[in-house]
């Protein structure tokens, strides 16, 4: 059994999926010989060759459009965008075609593609490299949005994403690509999509988060536990469709909820979860739902980016605020 990082979990899943299904192909800029800018596709070109691991011309719209076309013709393309900000030109094909193909043809065509890309800040990258656009994608009908937060979930969720018969946006939290190592068995077992994962049981407050913010959220939970607060932590994992049931069930027990996300707050996934709690869980709430988010500003360049990101202190503060309400 190997101890691997999150990004190695992605690579391991890609290799496993390509091994078991020859219609799976990987394409993107620099994914071939170079193995991707973060090395997510390292070794795949050598192992599977030019026809399975395809270096594309530098053209994001083309990558998205051809991926839709290939998927509609029975292949299972896994496209890489080098950075989250560079997926903006791809949105036309994701929203107008990938997400609509099955519905608009009444099932005649489908689009079993994966678009995977590193997202979020915290690695001192240049402009347009550090955004967290999950709410943009989650707002699109017909699209699954998945964000892993550990090596084992990267492996299991990526396998599920590739095998899924519908389009999946797979956002990889690059700040924690190599943060932790975990023993992951390469057994081809996928993890379920469309469900939240409860990482820690607790009774006083529910912390809901996903992706790289798992790191600060777990640290905040540790601090709070030391103060005698029992914290439940939920990793949303599939952003869309959203598993509100697990979140509501937790909040029904704890009566308090803080949602942590790196993305801007306005019209965000945190807002959607808060609205879901207002709709279905309000009678169980002892305090208002709090959101700890990135600010509604352009992602700052790296000298200021850590000031933008939710900190352990901000999370602990928000939890203390909801605990104050009795």
């Amino acid at each position, binding site marked *: 059994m190997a101890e691997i990082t999150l990004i190695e979990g992605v690579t391991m899943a890609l290799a496993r999926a390509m091994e078991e299904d020859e219609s799976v192909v990987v394409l993107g800029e620099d994914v071939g010989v170079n193995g991707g800018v973060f090395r997510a596709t390292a070794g795949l070109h050598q192992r599977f060759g030019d026809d399975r691991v395809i270096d594309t*011309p530098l053209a994001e719209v083309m990558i998205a459009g051809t991926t839709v076309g290939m998927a509609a*013709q029975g292949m299972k393309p896994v496209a890489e965008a080098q950075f989250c900000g560079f997926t903006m030109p791809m949105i036309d094909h994701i929203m107008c075609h990938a997400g609509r193909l099955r519905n608009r043809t009444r099932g005649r065509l489908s689009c079993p593609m994966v678009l995977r890309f590193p997202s979020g800040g915290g690695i001192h990258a240049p402009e347009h490299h550090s955004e967290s656009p999950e709410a943009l994608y989650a707002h699109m009908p017909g699209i699954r949005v998945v964000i892993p937060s550990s090596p084992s979930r990267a492996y299991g969720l990526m396998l599920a994403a590739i095998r899924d018969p519908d389009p999946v946006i797979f956002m990889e939290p690059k700040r924690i690509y190599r943060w932790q190592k975990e023993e992951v068995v390469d057994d081809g077992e996928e993890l379920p999509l469309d469900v939240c994962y409860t990482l820690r049981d607790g009774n006083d407050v529910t912390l809901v988060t996903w992706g790289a913010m798992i790191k600060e959220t777990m640290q905040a939970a540790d601090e709070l536990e030391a103060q005698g607060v029992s914290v439940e932590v939920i990793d949303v994992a599939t952003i869309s469709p959203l598993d509100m049931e697990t979140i509501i069930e937790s909040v029904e027990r704890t009566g308090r909820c803080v949602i942590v996300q790196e993305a801007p707050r306005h019209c965000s996934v945190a807002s959607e979860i808060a609205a879901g709690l207002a709709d279905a869980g309000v009678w169980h709430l002892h305090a208002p739902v709090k959101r700890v988010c990135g600010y509604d500003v352009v992602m700052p360049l790296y000298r200021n980016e850590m000031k933008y990101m939710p900190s352990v202190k901000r999370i602990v503060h928000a939890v203390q605020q909801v605990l104050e309400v009795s």
Partner: protein
Amino acid sequence: MAQTVAAFKVDYFQFLKPDGKLVEDQQIPALARDHDRLVELYKLMVLTRTFDKKAVALQRTGKLGTYASCLGHEAAHVAIGAAMREEDCFAPMYREYGAQFCRGVKMSEVLMYWGGDERGNNFSGPAHDFSWCVPIATQCLHAAGAALAYKLRKEERVAVSVVGDGGSSKGDFLEAINAGSAWKLPLVLVIVNNQWAISVPRSKQNTAATLAQKGIAGGLPSIQVDGNDLIACLWAMEKAVNAARSGKGSFVIEMMTYRLSDHTTADDARRYRPSDEVDDAWDKEPVKRLKAYLIDQGAWDEEREAELLEECSRWVQQAADEYVEQVENHPEGVTAMFDYMFAELPHDLAEQREYAQRFPEDGGHH
């Protein structure tokens, strides 16, 4: 001192002149003498025109939503469809009905689509063909993706896509050329240049001498043909499709035609287009031209023409009746909009589906 490192030319082909006579001093393709085939394609062009007239009439009487007419494009469209095989893949824009009729799409299905019923998209043509694409030029990349799939699977199949002169300004079109070139894909991109992108004339879209040369910039063999000359269109399409099928890569064909109608039924071209230009275009239109040629060749006559017109009217009326019957007597229920979003209904949509069933009455009236 400057050296010429590359030089290019764009050839233009016309075999059938507007008066229905063959051009002289040119190598006329053999298909010009295949009268039986030309008659069949002529019939399809007339059927397409009859259908188009009926669709506009249905829109004017409130039985169809906004409709994009194909008047004047019959030769280009029918040639595209006629050059393709069943296993090839067609990625149209939204007015290539003639091509789709060749491929088995039913007239009633086209009407369903423009009549606001998604079931029209689940058409009877090849199940792998793409449906109508309203966002401009994105379909070119879907065809490129299809062609890449065929190439990787080593299948002898070709993907064909159509874009307008307006659409040739879009990045998607240029990126499809690039993909076709970089990967030597079995891809044929057709620019049906009808001179107008809604109200913007060709002259305001680009100052290049031809739109075909955009293909040359990307490294693809590219030619221009008279898009109102069925023989030239079919000859060019067959050449390109056959070459693409045999591994010679991608091709660009610019078909020079004219949009005789409004852009759609929501448009009024009289606001921006000189009537003498339209009158001139009617003198060059494709149906009259092929008819004159076939009559001249003794392959057609007015008696058969009258029979054909009568037959086409009957078929089109039958299609219109089928469409109305289907959408009015067998409307899709409120749940259909949920049922095809994913292979399996996600739990959050299941909840919305159940809610929609409880409140199936219409909102949003104006």
